[in-house]
Protein backbone atom coordinates (compact mmCIF):
# COMPACT_ATOMS: atom_id res chain seq x y z
CA UNK A 1 0.00 0.00 0.00
CA UNK A 2 2.83 2.32 0.95
CA UNK A 3 4.67 1.28 -2.22
CA UNK A 4 1.57 2.04 -4.23
CA UNK A 5 1.26 5.49 -2.73
CA UNK A 6 4.88 6.34 -3.36
CA UNK A 7 4.74 5.21 -6.96
CA UNK A 8 1.21 6.35 -7.75
CA UNK A 9 2.26 9.19 -10.05
CA UNK A 10 4.70 6.99 -11.91
CA UNK A 11 2.09 4.26 -12.36
CA UNK A 12 -0.53 6.71 -13.60
CA UNK A 13 2.01 8.27 -15.96
CA UNK A 14 2.94 4.90 -17.38
CA UNK A 15 -0.75 4.07 -17.84
CA UNK A 16 -1.10 7.22 -19.95
CA UNK A 17 1.95 6.13 -21.93
CA UNK A 18 0.42 2.69 -22.48
CA UNK A 19 -2.78 4.40 -23.64
CA UNK A 20 -0.86 6.27 -26.33
CA UNK A 21 0.44 2.95 -27.63
CA UNK A 22 -2.91 1.14 -27.86
CA UNK A 23 -3.78 2.40 -31.35
CA UNK A 24 -0.28 1.55 -32.54
CA UNK A 25 -0.70 -2.01 -31.30
CA UNK A 26 -3.94 -2.25 -33.24
CA UNK A 27 -2.26 -0.90 -36.36
CA UNK A 28 0.57 -3.42 -36.10
CA UNK A 29 -1.91 -6.22 -35.41
CA UNK A 30 -4.12 -5.29 -38.34
CA UNK A 31 -1.13 -5.22 -40.67
CA UNK A 32 -1.03 -9.01 -40.21
CA UNK A 33 -4.78 -9.44 -40.55
CA UNK A 34 -6.53 -11.47 -43.19
CA UNK A 35 -9.97 -9.86 -43.11
CA UNK A 36 -13.11 -11.94 -43.46
CA UNK A 37 -14.46 -9.57 -46.06
CA UNK A 38 -13.53 -6.25 -47.61
CA UNK A 39 -15.88 -4.22 -45.43
CA UNK A 40 -15.29 -5.88 -42.08
CA UNK A 41 -12.57 -4.05 -40.27
CA UNK A 42 -11.86 -6.65 -37.62
CA UNK A 43 -9.09 -9.07 -36.78
CA UNK A 44 -9.78 -12.40 -38.38
CA UNK A 45 -6.70 -14.45 -39.14
CA UNK A 46 -2.92 -14.01 -39.17
CA UNK A 47 -1.29 -13.51 -42.55
CA UNK A 48 1.82 -11.99 -44.12
CA UNK A 49 -0.09 -11.30 -47.30
CA UNK A 50 -0.45 -7.57 -46.65
CA UNK A 51 3.30 -7.21 -46.24
CA UNK A 52 4.16 -9.22 -49.33
CA UNK A 53 1.47 -7.58 -51.46
CA UNK A 54 1.94 -4.03 -50.26
CA UNK A 55 1.04 -2.32 -53.51
CA UNK A 56 -2.03 -4.38 -54.31
CA UNK A 57 -4.60 -1.74 -53.35
CA UNK A 58 -5.11 0.44 -56.38
CA UNK A 59 -3.45 3.81 -56.13
CA UNK A 60 -1.99 3.38 -52.66
CA UNK A 61 1.66 2.99 -53.59
CA UNK A 62 1.41 5.79 -56.13
CA UNK A 63 0.04 8.07 -53.41
CA UNK A 64 2.67 6.85 -50.97
CA UNK A 65 5.50 7.49 -53.41
CA UNK A 66 4.07 10.92 -54.18
CA UNK A 67 3.98 11.76 -50.47
CA UNK A 68 7.59 10.66 -50.08
CA UNK A 69 8.63 12.86 -53.00
CA UNK A 70 6.71 15.84 -51.70
CA UNK A 71 8.15 15.21 -48.25
CA UNK A 72 11.72 15.21 -49.54
CA UNK A 73 11.27 18.28 -51.72
CA UNK A 74 9.46 20.26 -49.01
CA UNK A 75 12.09 19.22 -46.45
CA UNK A 76 14.96 20.22 -48.69
CA UNK A 77 13.62 23.68 -49.49
CA UNK A 78 12.24 24.48 -46.05
CA UNK A 79 15.41 23.26 -44.30
CA UNK A 80 17.64 25.44 -46.48
CA UNK A 81 15.47 28.55 -46.24
CA UNK A 82 14.76 27.99 -42.55
CA UNK A 83 18.42 27.40 -41.63
CA UNK A 84 19.52 30.56 -43.42
CA UNK A 85 16.80 32.52 -41.67
CA UNK A 86 17.75 31.04 -38.28
CA UNK A 87 21.37 32.10 -38.82
CA UNK A 88 20.22 35.59 -39.74
CA UNK A 89 17.99 35.84 -36.66
CA UNK A 90 20.65 34.69 -34.22
CA UNK A 91 23.78 36.17 -35.73
CA UNK A 92 22.74 39.23 -37.69
CA UNK A 93 21.11 42.46 -36.83
CA UNK A 94 18.48 43.91 -39.12
CA UNK A 95 15.48 46.18 -39.19
CA UNK A 96 12.02 44.76 -38.41
CA UNK A 97 13.41 41.94 -36.27
CA UNK A 98 10.32 41.57 -34.09
CA UNK A 99 7.98 41.71 -37.07
CA UNK A 100 10.02 38.93 -38.64
CA UNK A 101 9.79 36.88 -35.47
CA UNK A 102 6.01 37.32 -35.46
CA UNK A 103 5.84 36.33 -39.12
CA UNK A 104 7.66 33.12 -38.30
CA UNK A 105 5.59 32.38 -35.22
CA UNK A 106 2.11 32.95 -36.68
CA UNK A 107 1.95 30.03 -39.14
CA UNK A 108 2.58 27.67 -36.23
CA UNK A 109 -0.19 29.23 -34.16
CA UNK A 110 -2.88 29.43 -36.86
CA UNK A 111 -5.28 26.49 -37.29
CA UNK A 112 -4.45 24.39 -40.33
CA UNK A 113 -7.87 24.91 -41.83
CA UNK A 114 -7.28 28.67 -41.87
CA UNK A 115 -3.82 28.30 -43.43
CA UNK A 116 -5.19 25.95 -46.04
CA UNK A 117 -8.22 28.04 -46.91
CA UNK A 118 -6.15 31.25 -47.17
CA UNK A 119 -3.82 29.61 -49.64
CA UNK A 120 -6.76 28.27 -51.60
CA UNK A 121 -8.33 31.73 -51.61
CA UNK A 122 -5.08 33.07 -53.09
CA UNK A 123 -4.86 30.36 -55.72
CA UNK A 124 -8.47 30.93 -56.69
CA UNK A 125 -7.99 34.69 -56.86
CA UNK A 126 -4.88 34.18 -58.99
CA UNK A 127 -6.91 32.07 -61.39
CA UNK A 128 -5.03 28.97 -60.38
CA UNK A 129 -8.08 27.02 -59.22
CA UNK A 130 -7.95 24.62 -62.15
CA UNK A 131 -4.22 23.93 -61.79
CA UNK A 132 -4.02 22.74 -58.20
CA UNK A 133 -1.58 19.87 -57.79
CA UNK A 134 2.00 19.06 -56.93
CA UNK A 135 3.17 22.67 -57.19
CA UNK A 136 0.48 24.08 -54.91
CA UNK A 137 0.96 21.23 -52.41
CA UNK A 138 4.69 21.92 -52.31
CA UNK A 139 4.19 25.64 -51.84
CA UNK A 140 1.87 24.94 -48.90
CA UNK A 141 4.12 22.33 -47.30
CA UNK A 142 7.25 24.47 -47.52
CA UNK A 143 5.29 27.32 -45.99
CA UNK A 144 4.19 25.44 -42.88
CA UNK A 145 7.47 23.51 -42.43
CA UNK A 146 9.56 26.66 -42.68
CA UNK A 147 8.59 28.08 -39.29
CA UNK A 148 9.31 24.81 -37.52
CA UNK A 149 12.76 24.63 -39.12
CA UNK A 150 13.59 28.19 -38.10
CA UNK A 151 12.52 27.56 -34.51
CA UNK A 152 14.45 24.28 -34.21
CA UNK A 153 17.70 25.52 -35.77
CA UNK A 154 17.47 28.84 -33.96
CA UNK A 155 17.29 27.20 -30.54
CA UNK A 156 20.35 25.10 -31.38
CA UNK A 157 22.26 28.15 -32.59
CA UNK A 158 21.23 30.32 -29.66
CA UNK A 159 22.47 27.68 -27.24
CA UNK A 160 25.90 27.82 -28.87
CA UNK A 161 28.15 30.59 -27.61
CA UNK A 162 30.09 32.44 -30.28
CA UNK A 163 33.26 32.11 -28.22
CA UNK A 164 33.93 28.90 -30.13
CA UNK A 165 33.95 30.84 -33.39
CA UNK A 166 36.21 33.46 -31.85
CA UNK A 167 38.51 30.68 -30.70
CA UNK A 168 38.63 29.31 -34.25
CA UNK A 169 39.46 32.76 -35.64
CA UNK A 170 42.11 33.13 -32.96
CA UNK A 171 43.59 29.82 -34.17
CA UNK A 172 44.07 31.07 -37.74
CA UNK A 173 40.81 29.79 -39.23
CA UNK A 174 39.48 32.10 -41.93
CA UNK A 175 35.76 32.95 -41.75
CA UNK A 176 35.03 30.24 -44.29
CA UNK A 177 37.05 27.65 -42.39
CA UNK A 178 35.44 28.74 -39.14
CA UNK A 179 32.01 28.18 -40.65
CA UNK A 180 32.68 24.74 -42.09
CA UNK A 181 34.95 23.38 -39.34
CA UNK A 182 33.23 24.77 -36.25
CA UNK A 183 29.85 26.42 -36.77
CA UNK A 184 28.31 23.98 -39.20
CA UNK A 185 29.33 20.74 -37.43
CA UNK A 186 27.95 22.10 -34.17
CA UNK A 187 24.64 23.23 -35.64
CA UNK A 188 24.24 20.15 -37.81
CA UNK A 189 22.32 18.04 -35.27
CA UNK A 190 19.78 20.85 -35.04
CA UNK A 191 19.48 21.05 -38.82
CA UNK A 192 19.05 17.29 -39.03
CA UNK A 193 16.35 17.37 -36.37
CA UNK A 194 14.59 20.16 -38.22
CA UNK A 195 14.72 18.18 -41.46
CA UNK A 196 13.23 15.08 -39.81
CA UNK A 197 10.47 17.19 -38.29
CA UNK A 198 9.76 18.81 -41.66
CA UNK A 199 9.53 15.49 -43.39
CA UNK A 200 7.11 14.05 -40.88
CA UNK A 201 4.96 17.21 -40.92
CA UNK A 202 4.82 17.22 -44.70
CA UNK A 203 4.31 13.48 -45.05
CA UNK A 204 1.45 13.44 -42.57
CA UNK A 205 -0.40 16.61 -43.52
CA UNK A 206 -3.98 16.21 -44.57
CA UNK A 207 -6.09 19.30 -43.90
CA UNK A 208 -3.99 21.86 -45.79
CA UNK A 209 -3.13 19.40 -48.55
CA UNK A 210 -6.72 18.34 -49.06
CA UNK A 211 -7.71 21.93 -49.79
CA UNK A 212 -4.90 22.65 -52.22
CA UNK A 213 -4.26 19.33 -53.94
CA UNK A 214 -6.85 19.46 -56.70
CA UNK A 215 -7.03 15.93 -58.11
CA UNK A 216 -3.56 14.91 -56.92
CA UNK A 217 -3.71 12.28 -54.19
CA UNK A 218 -1.16 12.04 -51.37
CA UNK A 219 -0.99 9.12 -48.97
CA UNK A 220 -3.11 10.73 -46.23
CA UNK A 221 -5.65 11.67 -48.90
CA UNK A 222 -5.67 8.11 -50.14
CA UNK A 223 -6.39 6.85 -46.62
CA UNK A 224 -9.13 9.46 -46.27
CA UNK A 225 -10.76 8.30 -49.47
CA UNK A 226 -10.35 4.65 -48.54
CA UNK A 227 -11.97 5.28 -45.16
CA UNK A 228 -15.26 5.94 -46.94
CA UNK A 229 -15.08 2.73 -48.99
CA UNK A 230 -13.30 0.32 -46.65
CA UNK A 231 -9.65 0.52 -45.72
CA UNK A 232 -7.26 -2.02 -47.22
CA UNK A 233 -5.11 -3.79 -44.63
CA UNK A 234 -1.98 -2.60 -46.44
CA UNK A 235 -2.57 0.87 -45.02
CA UNK A 236 -1.71 -0.62 -41.62
CA UNK A 237 1.50 -2.01 -43.08
CA UNK A 238 2.50 1.50 -44.09
CA UNK A 239 1.49 2.78 -40.64
CA UNK A 240 3.61 0.09 -38.98
CA UNK A 241 6.59 0.88 -41.19
CA UNK A 242 6.34 4.61 -40.47
CA UNK A 243 6.29 3.86 -36.77
CA UNK A 244 9.21 1.45 -36.95
CA UNK A 245 11.38 3.72 -39.06
CA UNK A 246 10.90 6.79 -36.90
CA UNK A 247 11.39 4.87 -33.68
CA UNK A 248 14.61 3.42 -35.10
CA UNK A 249 15.88 6.87 -36.02
CA UNK A 250 14.97 8.47 -32.72
CA UNK A 251 16.07 5.59 -30.48
CA UNK A 252 19.29 5.30 -32.50
CA UNK A 253 20.04 8.96 -31.96
CA UNK A 254 19.20 8.64 -28.26
CA UNK A 255 21.43 5.58 -27.78
CA UNK A 256 24.25 7.32 -29.59
CA UNK A 257 23.86 10.29 -27.30
CA UNK A 258 23.70 8.01 -24.26
CA UNK A 259 26.91 6.23 -25.25
CA UNK A 260 28.67 9.54 -25.46
CA UNK A 261 27.31 10.64 -22.13
CA UNK A 262 28.32 7.38 -20.49
CA UNK A 263 31.86 7.83 -21.75
CA UNK A 264 32.03 10.91 -19.56
CA UNK A 265 31.69 9.03 -16.33
Amino acid at each position, binding site marked *: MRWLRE*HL*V*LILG*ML*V*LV*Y*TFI*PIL*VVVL*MSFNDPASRNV*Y*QFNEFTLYNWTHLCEPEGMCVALWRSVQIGFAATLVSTI*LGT*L*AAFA*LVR*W*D*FALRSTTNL*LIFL*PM*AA*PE*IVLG*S*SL*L*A*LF*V*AAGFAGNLGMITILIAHI*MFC*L*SFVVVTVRSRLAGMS*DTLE*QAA*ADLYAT*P*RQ*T*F*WRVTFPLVFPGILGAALLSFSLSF*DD*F*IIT*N*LNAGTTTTF*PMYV*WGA*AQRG*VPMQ*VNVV*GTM*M*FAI*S*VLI*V*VGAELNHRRRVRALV
Partner: protein
Amino acid sequence: MASTAGAAPVAVADVEPDTGRRRGLTGYLLILPGVLWLVLFFVVPFYSLVATSLYDPAGSDFRGYEMTYHFQNYWTALQEYWTPLVRSLVYGGIATLFCLVLGYVLAYAIAFKTGRWKNLMLVLVIAPFFTSFLVRTLSWKLILADDGFVVDFLQTVHLLGEDGRLLATPVAVVAGLTYNFLPFMVLPLYASIDKIDHRLIEASSDLYANPFVGFWKVTWPLSLPGVVSGTLLTFIPAVGDYINAQLLGSPNQRMIGSVIQSQFTDANNYPIAAALSMILMLLILAMVLVYIRKAGTEELL
Protein backbone atom coordinates in the same frame (compact mmCIF):
# COMPACT_ATOMS: atom_id res chain seq x y z
CA MET B 1 23.35 24.51 -49.66
CA ALA B 2 27.11 24.71 -49.89
CA SER B 3 27.16 27.73 -52.12
CA THR B 4 24.56 29.71 -50.21
CA ALA B 5 26.17 29.14 -46.85
CA GLY B 6 29.64 29.72 -48.22
CA ALA B 7 28.54 33.04 -49.61
CA ALA B 8 27.83 34.19 -46.10
CA PRO B 9 31.15 33.88 -44.32
CA VAL B 10 30.97 34.52 -40.63
CA ALA B 11 32.93 37.71 -40.13
CA VAL B 12 34.00 37.17 -36.57
CA ALA B 13 36.01 40.36 -36.43
CA ASP B 14 32.95 42.58 -36.78
CA VAL B 15 31.20 41.23 -33.69
CA GLU B 16 29.34 43.95 -31.83
CA PRO B 17 29.77 43.05 -28.20
CA ASP B 18 26.51 44.61 -26.99
CA THR B 19 24.19 42.26 -28.87
CA GLY B 20 26.72 39.81 -30.26
CA ARG B 21 25.04 40.40 -33.61
CA ARG B 22 26.70 41.69 -36.73
CA ARG B 23 25.30 44.32 -39.00
CA GLY B 24 25.40 44.18 -42.73
CA LEU B 25 23.80 43.14 -45.95
CA THR B 26 24.49 39.44 -45.40
CA GLY B 27 21.86 39.27 -42.66
CA TYR B 28 19.22 40.53 -45.04
CA LEU B 29 20.34 38.14 -47.76
CA LEU B 30 20.07 35.22 -45.36
CA ILE B 31 16.61 36.05 -44.06
CA LEU B 32 15.13 37.26 -47.32
CA PRO B 33 14.24 33.95 -49.03
CA GLY B 34 12.40 32.62 -45.99
CA VAL B 35 10.61 35.86 -45.29
CA LEU B 36 9.67 36.22 -48.93
CA TRP B 37 8.17 32.75 -48.94
CA LEU B 38 6.12 33.47 -45.84
CA VAL B 39 4.97 36.82 -47.17
CA LEU B 40 3.93 35.35 -50.53
CA PHE B 41 2.30 32.20 -49.19
CA PHE B 42 1.15 33.19 -45.72
CA VAL B 43 0.54 36.94 -45.56
CA VAL B 44 -0.76 37.50 -49.09
CA PRO B 45 -3.08 34.44 -48.87
CA PHE B 46 -4.46 35.79 -45.64
CA TYR B 47 -5.27 39.00 -47.44
CA SER B 48 -6.93 36.94 -50.18
CA LEU B 49 -8.97 35.18 -47.53
CA VAL B 50 -10.19 38.47 -46.12
CA ALA B 51 -10.99 39.69 -49.64
CA THR B 52 -12.75 36.47 -50.58
CA SER B 53 -14.89 36.67 -47.47
CA LEU B 54 -16.25 40.00 -48.74
CA TYR B 55 -16.98 38.90 -52.32
CA ASP B 56 -20.44 38.92 -53.77
CA PRO B 57 -21.87 35.51 -52.79
CA ALA B 58 -23.68 35.28 -56.12
CA GLY B 59 -20.38 34.75 -57.90
CA SER B 60 -19.16 31.37 -59.14
CA ASP B 61 -16.19 29.82 -60.88
CA PHE B 62 -17.78 30.56 -64.23
CA ARG B 63 -18.99 34.08 -63.69
CA GLY B 64 -16.11 35.13 -61.51
CA TYR B 65 -16.28 36.92 -58.19
CA GLU B 66 -16.88 40.55 -57.52
CA MET B 67 -15.54 42.52 -54.59
CA THR B 68 -18.63 44.11 -53.13
CA TYR B 69 -17.58 44.44 -49.46
CA HIS B 70 -20.42 42.12 -48.72
CA PHE B 71 -20.14 41.94 -44.92
CA GLN B 72 -23.46 40.15 -45.03
CA ASN B 73 -21.43 36.98 -45.77
CA TYR B 74 -20.35 36.84 -42.14
CA TRP B 75 -23.92 37.04 -40.91
CA THR B 76 -25.08 34.39 -43.36
CA ALA B 77 -22.23 32.10 -42.37
CA LEU B 78 -22.92 32.52 -38.68
CA GLN B 79 -26.66 31.98 -39.06
CA GLU B 80 -26.26 28.88 -41.09
CA TYR B 81 -23.27 27.28 -39.35
CA TRP B 82 -23.26 28.44 -35.77
CA THR B 83 -23.89 24.92 -34.47
CA PRO B 84 -20.75 23.31 -35.90
CA LEU B 85 -18.83 26.40 -34.87
CA VAL B 86 -19.91 26.24 -31.24
CA ARG B 87 -19.56 22.46 -31.29
CA SER B 88 -15.95 22.78 -32.46
CA LEU B 89 -15.10 25.15 -29.66
CA VAL B 90 -16.77 22.92 -27.08
CA TYR B 91 -15.18 19.70 -28.35
CA GLY B 92 -11.81 21.42 -28.61
CA GLY B 93 -12.17 22.80 -25.09
CA ILE B 94 -13.13 19.47 -23.53
CA ALA B 95 -10.37 17.63 -25.38
CA THR B 96 -7.87 20.24 -24.20
CA LEU B 97 -9.01 19.75 -20.62
CA PHE B 98 -8.60 15.96 -20.87
CA CYS B 99 -5.20 16.46 -22.50
CA LEU B 100 -4.19 18.70 -19.65
CA VAL B 101 -5.05 16.09 -17.02
CA LEU B 102 -3.47 13.16 -18.84
CA GLY B 103 -0.54 15.21 -20.09
CA TYR B 104 0.21 16.65 -16.67
CA VAL B 105 0.36 13.25 -15.04
CA LEU B 106 2.62 11.94 -17.78
CA ALA B 107 4.88 15.00 -17.90
CA TYR B 108 5.18 15.08 -14.12
CA ALA B 109 6.00 11.39 -13.96
CA ILE B 110 8.67 11.72 -16.65
CA ALA B 111 10.22 14.84 -15.18
CA PHE B 112 10.39 13.68 -11.58
CA LYS B 113 10.05 9.92 -11.45
CA THR B 114 11.97 8.37 -14.31
CA GLY B 115 15.50 9.51 -13.46
CA ARG B 116 17.99 8.61 -16.14
CA TRP B 117 15.31 7.15 -18.41
CA LYS B 118 13.89 10.63 -18.98
CA ASN B 119 15.03 11.04 -22.56
CA LEU B 120 13.96 7.57 -23.57
CA MET B 121 10.54 8.21 -22.03
CA LEU B 122 10.19 11.43 -24.00
CA VAL B 123 10.99 9.52 -27.16
CA LEU B 124 8.29 7.01 -26.25
CA VAL B 125 5.79 9.84 -25.80
CA ILE B 126 6.41 11.12 -29.30
CA ALA B 127 6.89 7.76 -31.00
CA PRO B 128 3.22 6.77 -31.51
CA PHE B 129 2.61 10.09 -33.21
CA PHE B 130 5.04 9.37 -35.98
CA THR B 131 2.46 7.04 -37.48
CA SER B 132 0.07 8.67 -39.89
CA PHE B 133 -2.59 10.78 -38.18
CA LEU B 134 -5.28 9.16 -40.29
CA VAL B 135 -4.09 5.62 -39.65
CA ARG B 136 -4.04 6.30 -35.91
CA THR B 137 -7.55 7.71 -36.02
CA LEU B 138 -8.81 4.76 -38.04
CA SER B 139 -7.30 2.54 -35.40
CA TRP B 140 -9.47 4.26 -32.79
CA LYS B 141 -12.46 3.61 -35.01
CA LEU B 142 -11.69 -0.05 -34.69
CA ILE B 143 -11.12 0.09 -30.94
CA LEU B 144 -14.39 1.93 -30.32
CA ALA B 145 -16.33 -0.16 -32.83
CA ASP B 146 -19.78 -1.44 -31.86
CA ASP B 147 -18.56 -5.01 -31.44
CA GLY B 148 -15.13 -4.03 -30.13
CA PHE B 149 -13.88 -4.93 -26.67
CA VAL B 150 -14.32 -1.42 -25.23
CA VAL B 151 -18.01 -1.30 -26.02
CA ASP B 152 -18.43 -4.95 -24.90
CA PHE B 153 -16.77 -4.14 -21.58
CA LEU B 154 -18.83 -1.00 -21.00
CA GLN B 155 -22.00 -2.95 -21.76
CA THR B 156 -21.02 -5.70 -19.33
CA VAL B 157 -20.54 -3.21 -16.51
CA HIS B 158 -23.78 -1.50 -17.59
CA LEU B 159 -22.17 1.84 -18.33
CA LEU B 160 -23.63 1.49 -21.80
CA GLY B 161 -27.04 0.14 -22.68
CA GLU B 162 -27.54 -3.08 -24.69
CA ASP B 163 -27.53 -1.21 -27.96
CA GLY B 164 -25.48 1.71 -26.74
CA ARG B 165 -22.47 2.67 -28.85
CA LEU B 166 -19.44 4.89 -28.79
CA LEU B 167 -18.79 5.46 -32.48
CA ALA B 168 -20.78 8.28 -34.01
CA THR B 169 -21.12 9.93 -30.59
CA PRO B 170 -19.43 13.05 -29.20
CA VAL B 171 -17.56 10.74 -26.79
CA ALA B 172 -15.67 9.12 -29.64
CA VAL B 173 -14.85 12.45 -31.29
CA VAL B 174 -13.56 14.02 -28.07
CA ALA B 175 -11.61 10.84 -27.26
CA GLY B 176 -10.00 10.96 -30.68
CA LEU B 177 -9.10 14.64 -30.36
CA THR B 178 -7.68 14.04 -26.88
CA TYR B 179 -5.52 11.22 -28.13
CA ASN B 180 -4.24 12.89 -31.27
CA PHE B 181 -3.19 16.17 -29.68
CA LEU B 182 -1.75 14.78 -26.45
CA PRO B 183 1.93 15.29 -27.41
CA PHE B 184 1.28 19.00 -28.06
CA MET B 185 0.35 19.16 -24.39
CA VAL B 186 2.98 16.84 -22.91
CA LEU B 187 6.08 18.42 -24.44
CA PRO B 188 5.62 22.03 -23.26
CA LEU B 189 4.38 20.79 -19.88
CA TYR B 190 7.43 18.61 -19.54
CA ALA B 191 9.73 21.49 -20.46
CA SER B 192 8.18 23.60 -17.71
CA ILE B 193 7.97 20.95 -15.00
CA ASP B 194 11.47 19.68 -15.67
CA LYS B 195 12.85 23.14 -14.92
CA ILE B 196 11.37 23.17 -11.42
CA ASP B 197 14.01 22.70 -8.77
CA HIS B 198 13.04 19.53 -6.97
CA ARG B 199 14.30 20.98 -3.70
CA LEU B 200 11.45 23.51 -3.83
CA ILE B 201 8.95 20.67 -3.70
CA GLU B 202 10.84 19.04 -0.86
CA ALA B 203 10.88 22.39 0.93
CA SER B 204 7.13 22.71 0.44
CA SER B 205 6.48 19.26 1.83
CA ASP B 206 8.62 20.32 4.75
CA LEU B 207 6.56 23.48 5.24
CA TYR B 208 3.06 22.40 4.29
CA ALA B 209 3.27 18.69 5.15
CA ASN B 210 0.29 17.95 2.91
CA PRO B 211 1.47 17.03 -0.61
CA PHE B 212 -1.76 18.31 -2.21
CA VAL B 213 -1.37 21.76 -0.74
CA GLY B 214 2.28 21.67 -1.72
CA PHE B 215 1.33 20.82 -5.28
CA TRP B 216 -1.17 23.66 -5.58
CA LYS B 217 1.10 26.20 -3.95
CA VAL B 218 4.40 25.27 -5.56
CA THR B 219 4.43 22.84 -8.49
CA TRP B 220 1.29 24.04 -10.26
CA PRO B 221 2.14 27.78 -10.24
CA LEU B 222 5.68 27.08 -11.37
CA SER B 223 4.46 24.94 -14.25
CA LEU B 224 1.95 27.56 -15.46
CA PRO B 225 4.03 28.68 -18.46
CA GLY B 226 3.93 25.09 -19.72
CA VAL B 227 0.23 24.84 -18.97
CA VAL B 228 -0.50 28.00 -20.97
CA SER B 229 1.54 27.07 -24.03
CA GLY B 230 0.41 23.44 -23.85
CA THR B 231 -3.28 24.30 -23.76
CA LEU B 232 -2.89 26.76 -26.64
CA LEU B 233 -0.92 24.29 -28.74
CA THR B 234 -3.64 21.70 -28.14
CA PHE B 235 -6.74 23.86 -28.35
CA ILE B 236 -5.97 25.68 -31.60
CA PRO B 237 -5.41 22.64 -33.83
CA ALA B 238 -8.13 20.65 -32.06
CA VAL B 239 -10.78 23.27 -32.86
CA GLY B 240 -9.76 23.39 -36.51
CA ASP B 241 -9.53 19.62 -36.91
CA TYR B 242 -12.27 17.69 -38.68
CA ILE B 243 -10.60 14.34 -39.25
CA ASN B 244 -11.69 12.96 -35.89
CA ALA B 245 -15.24 14.22 -36.27
CA GLN B 246 -15.49 12.74 -39.74
CA LEU B 247 -13.95 9.35 -39.03
CA LEU B 248 -15.23 8.74 -35.50
CA GLY B 249 -18.44 10.76 -35.46
CA SER B 250 -21.53 11.16 -37.56
CA PRO B 251 -22.98 14.21 -39.33
CA ASN B 252 -24.35 15.16 -35.91
CA GLN B 253 -20.79 15.71 -34.72
CA ARG B 254 -19.75 17.74 -37.75
CA MET B 255 -17.08 20.31 -36.92
CA ILE B 256 -16.42 23.69 -38.50
CA GLY B 257 -13.31 22.57 -40.38
CA SER B 258 -15.38 20.09 -42.26
CA VAL B 259 -17.88 22.80 -43.22
CA ILE B 260 -15.15 25.12 -44.48
CA GLN B 261 -13.54 22.30 -46.46
CA SER B 262 -16.76 21.28 -48.17
CA GLN B 263 -17.91 24.85 -48.82
CA PHE B 264 -14.60 25.42 -50.56
CA THR B 265 -14.18 22.24 -52.56
CA ASP B 266 -17.62 20.68 -52.94
CA ALA B 267 -20.02 23.63 -52.84
CA ASN B 268 -17.58 26.10 -54.38
CA ASN B 269 -19.12 28.70 -52.11
CA TYR B 270 -15.87 30.59 -51.60
CA PRO B 271 -17.20 33.74 -49.90
CA ILE B 272 -19.04 31.81 -47.20
CA ALA B 273 -16.12 29.41 -46.70
CA ALA B 274 -13.69 32.31 -46.38
CA ALA B 275 -16.02 34.14 -43.99
CA LEU B 276 -16.26 31.02 -41.80
CA SER B 277 -12.50 30.67 -41.84
CA MET B 278 -12.14 34.27 -40.75
CA ILE B 279 -14.73 33.85 -37.99
CA LEU B 280 -12.89 30.79 -36.68
CA MET B 281 -9.60 32.63 -36.75
CA LEU B 282 -11.00 35.69 -34.97
CA LEU B 283 -12.80 33.61 -32.35
CA ILE B 284 -9.67 31.65 -31.55
CA LEU B 285 -7.61 34.83 -31.45
CA ALA B 286 -10.06 36.49 -29.06
CA MET B 287 -10.20 33.44 -26.78
CA VAL B 288 -6.43 33.13 -26.75
CA LEU B 289 -5.96 36.77 -25.86
CA VAL B 290 -8.48 36.63 -23.02
CA TYR B 291 -6.95 33.39 -21.81
CA ILE B 292 -3.38 34.68 -21.86
CA ARG B 293 -4.41 37.79 -19.99
CA LYS B 294 -6.20 35.74 -17.37
CA ALA B 295 -3.42 33.20 -17.00
CA GLY B 296 -0.98 36.09 -16.75
CA THR B 297 -2.78 37.73 -13.83
CA GLU B 298 -3.18 34.40 -12.07
CA GLU B 299 0.54 34.00 -12.29
CA LEU B 300 0.99 37.34 -10.61
CA LEU B 301 -1.43 36.61 -7.78
